[in-house]
């Protein structure tokens, strides 16, 4: 079947197209060139006055894995306020802060998103992450495997194993967990918490291993680079949420020595200690460092006001943050000599000085970083706010007067502590398309996604241009996934299953020998039972794996 999308204004940064009117042809799930000679269009959509982008990609969203399910279980009252009934074509579930898997897929698709990436896949919990993501309809998905507090790596560092050995272990772990990237959370700090350390600075040693976060970041960033993984090491740094942590973040940027590194939810790591409340914005300094260091990419982790729940691998910082739990219930876990997690419900309030300034810091960061290819639109769902708030966030970025109206309502002391009112920048549609599509696909290393040129998969979102950008982005006219129409007027009309994106870096098989000994002695399962097989993703007939090339390899 040949589909033609006719006459829309196309925003396709990957092809350098910035709002030109242009037709798009779809056949067999992919975008194709206009056929030559006589041809018959089977289905045409008249897109005059519409805006066309590729499907949006959320490069950091907690949509799969144990901590998310703990968050769900913890908050029945939040679900009760947002029940989702079944229809003839969709399953029932619940929404708001941590939606059920099916509802996650529907609501993302209904906002024009066609892919989401879980940023904290614990190797030992990777099965669960993939099983949950397998129950998210429509979206493509993938995960970054969490390393850096796993005892095996820390033992390697203490034993001064060489970089090659570490590369092999990282590659093995990525393959075992079916990952497309590597994440580190509070490097070495999750382990340190198990030894009763309650904070860990960049150059502070894990009390048992004598290893510092700086060393862990270096070896992992090097491994990612040397293995040819496109997605740079994905870093949730030290001292999350601690006033003054902007210095840690600046140090982290300097300390990586030019290696590619992605600093995630940087808003939570951009705090100074100035002012009467000893809490201030570090956004300007952080943005300056990001602008200067081209090896650095960031996503923001914007907070938006209201109830949500924070779910993180950072058991150390989440334990410290439990004092802010609202409602007052929270969970931490130490997990399998592998990682940990902490789940703390939060209610961000515009009349609370700290929350109000956090909101402003996130927006300052968005507006002060020059290059939209190196900054990504996230709320660190659900930690800063549920993903359903993205259209509101886009309006804040694109509409200065709206932004200033909201700014005028927040805690007055916070207003005094932010430069936001003086920042004139408004994001363009093309810049939004870069942050949420082309840039994300490039950052993750997704082949044939995030662009509208021939050969790409037909993941396409069509909006009606509207000066109210929130209205525009919360209700696309059409969403196509792999060429199939899945959403009309912001409602799911058809469902399908997306693929799981992975990379398969090579490793020397000898790494499994040492691992086997380690598993037999210290772990609770056999190495053979730990590794996730391809079958586990594909055997139910819905899932599939899409393997992306490594850098330097021939596609």
């Amino acid at each position, binding site marked *: 079947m040949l589909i033609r999308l006719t006459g829309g204004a196309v925003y396709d940064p990957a092809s350098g197209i910035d709002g030109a009117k242009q037709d798009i042809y779809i056949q067999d799930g992919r975008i194709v060139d206009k056929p030559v000679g006589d041809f018959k269009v089977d289905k045409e959509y008249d897109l005059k006055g519409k805006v066309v982008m590729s499907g949006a990609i959320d490069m950091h969203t907690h949509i799969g894995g144990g901590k998310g399910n703990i968050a769900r279980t913890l908050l029945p009252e939040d679900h009760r306020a947002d029940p989702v009934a079944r229809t003839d074509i969709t399953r029932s579930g619940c929404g708001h802060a941590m939606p059920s898997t099916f509802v996650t897929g529907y609501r993302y698709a209904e906002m024009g998103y066609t892919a989401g990436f879980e940023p904290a896949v614990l190797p*030992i919990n990777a099965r669960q992450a993939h099983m949950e993501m397998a129950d998210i309809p429509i979206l493509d998905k993938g995960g970054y495997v969490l390393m850096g507090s796993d005892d095996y790596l820390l033992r390697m560092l203490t034993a001064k194993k060489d970089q090659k050995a570490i590369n092999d272990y990282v590659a093995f772990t990525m393959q075992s967990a079916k990952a497309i990237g590597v994440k580190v959370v509070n490097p070495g700090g999750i382990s340190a918490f198990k030894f*009763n350390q309650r904070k860990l600075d960049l150059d502070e040693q894990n009390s048992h291993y004598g290893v510092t976060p700086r060393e862990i970041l270096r070896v992992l960033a090097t491994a990612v680079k040397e293995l040819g993984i496109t997605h740079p090491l994905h870093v949730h740094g030290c001292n999350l949420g601690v006033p003054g942590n902007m210095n840690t973040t600046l140090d982290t940027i300097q300390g990586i020595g030019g290696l590619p590194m992605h600093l995630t939810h940087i808003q939570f790591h951009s705090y100074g200690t100035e002012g009467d409340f000893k809490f201030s914005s570090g956004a300007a300094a952080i943005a300056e460092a990001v602008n200067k260091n081209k090896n650095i990419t960031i996503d923001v982790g914007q907070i938006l006001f209201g109830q949500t729940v924070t779910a993180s691998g950072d058991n150390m910082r989440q334990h410290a943050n439990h004092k802010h739990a609202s409602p007052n219930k929270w*969970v931490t876990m130490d997990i*399998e000599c592998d990682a940990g997690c902490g789940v703390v419900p939060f209610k961000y309030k515009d009349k609370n000085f700290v929350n109000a300034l956090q909101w402003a810091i996130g927006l300052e960061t968005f507006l002060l970083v020059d290059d939209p290819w190196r900054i990504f639109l996230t709320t660190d769902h659900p930690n800063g706010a549920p993903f359903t708030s993205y259209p509101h966030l886009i309006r804040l970025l694109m509409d200065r007067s709206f932004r200033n109206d909201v700014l005028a309502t927040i805690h007055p002391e916070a207003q005094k502590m932010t430069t936001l009112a003086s920042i004139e920048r408004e994001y363009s549609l093309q810049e939004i398309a870069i942050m949420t599509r082309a840039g994300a696909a490039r950052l993750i290393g997704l082949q044939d996604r995030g662009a509208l040129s021939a050969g790409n998969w037909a993941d396409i979102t069509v909006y009606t241009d509207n000066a109210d950008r929130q209205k525009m982005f919360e209700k696309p006219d059409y969403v196509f996934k792999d060429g199939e129409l899945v959403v009309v007027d912001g409602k799911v009309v058809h469902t399908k299953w997306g693929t799981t994106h992975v990379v398969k870096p090579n490793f020397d098989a000898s790494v499994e020998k040492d691992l086997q000994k380690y598993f037999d002695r210290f772990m*609770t399962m056999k190495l053979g039972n730990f590794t996730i097989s391809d079958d586990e993703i594909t055997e139910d007939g819905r899932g599939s794996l899409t393997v992306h090339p490594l850098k330097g390899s021939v596609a």
Partner: protein
Amino acid sequence: MAEITEVPSPFCGIGTDDLTIQVDGVSLKVVKNGCAVNTPAFEQAITDTRPRVDGKDVSLDEAVAKAAALLKNTNQPVIGGCATDVNGMRALLALADRSGAVVDNMNFTGARNNFLALQDSGWMNTTLAEVKNRCDLLLVVGADLESFSPRFFERYLWNEASMFLADTGKREVIYLGKAPSGTASTSPSGQKALVFECANDDLPDVVAVLRALVKGNPIRVDSVGGIAVADLQGIADKLLAASYSVVTWAAGALAYSQAELTVQTISEMVKDINNRNTRSSGLPLGGKEGDQTANQVCGWTTGYPARTRFSSGFPEYDPYLNDTNTLLANGEADALVWVQAFNSKAVPPATNLPTIVVGRSGMTFDQEPDVFIPVGTPGIDHAGHAYRMDNVVAIRLKKLRDSGLPSTSDVLNAIEQACR
């Protein structure tokens, strides 16, 4: 005859995956690393292979059609048992969503003690590898750990090597409430567990006093539940002196009214210890016959644990009202579907309602259900996934033999299709 090694077990809850099993046609023999729980569960013979309708052998298609016909005109069927693997639960929830059923895991009344505590105040918990490598003091509250899982001590406490303990034999074990039924908790060098027994009903008081002592609050009595306060002070001192204590309990063993408050007191005590400059973690026991699996899959599919109804068209959780037994007793259900792929002895509750049983081969009934469809056991007859007690690790279950029995998900998916 084939021999399969590194076989994981869905039966014991602690995720043993070192069994060696001999397969001869469809008969299995555990030849290595069996235990009182796992060996009989694996070795149980297949008896029924044919579905039955009204007691007569029929084809699978006929049984599925009859099941769908029975469900079609119901207003509020109950799907009980819910003892199967991840794919089985996925299919079960799809059927429940379509038929407006109540989903209720058979162990939920026990597990409720944990869920109510979790949903009210939360906890700090750990997993088995942390126990194996870090735990220097294990406090067992109100449970007989070795009858729950016979190999717990061998695998996770008296393991030879540990990353962070010089000598695992020096770990301390304390029982509070129940005494151990055997000697598994005695260390290899002969060090016996400390045991402080009390009646189950006294556990709330005993645990409350222990928490108060951990916090350094004064206690004005000399004994509680027959245990000297001085002994409880001894336990509190050990908890505060340990580097990484672990407190374990079995929610189902706390079989008294409002036992969730005991779980909450234990969990809050663990938090208190973590505020006294050392580490401690909780470790709820469970994970048998798919109970964690049911709650996990129901959790991501609906947002709620596995005592949830779909009769309004969307999931509604109620840990009391959605109890199978309550619904049957009050005449609020109009059909019963019983799903139990692990344990042929776990039969459905007695009822006069139309009953469909999707059960492990070998189930026998006082009253023949309208439809009985024998299914394969996950981890024996087909591959699958099941959660361990620590709720983080999903084990990959293996297919050991070709029995021809359908899986739970095959059957429930077929019924769901037929209900359309």
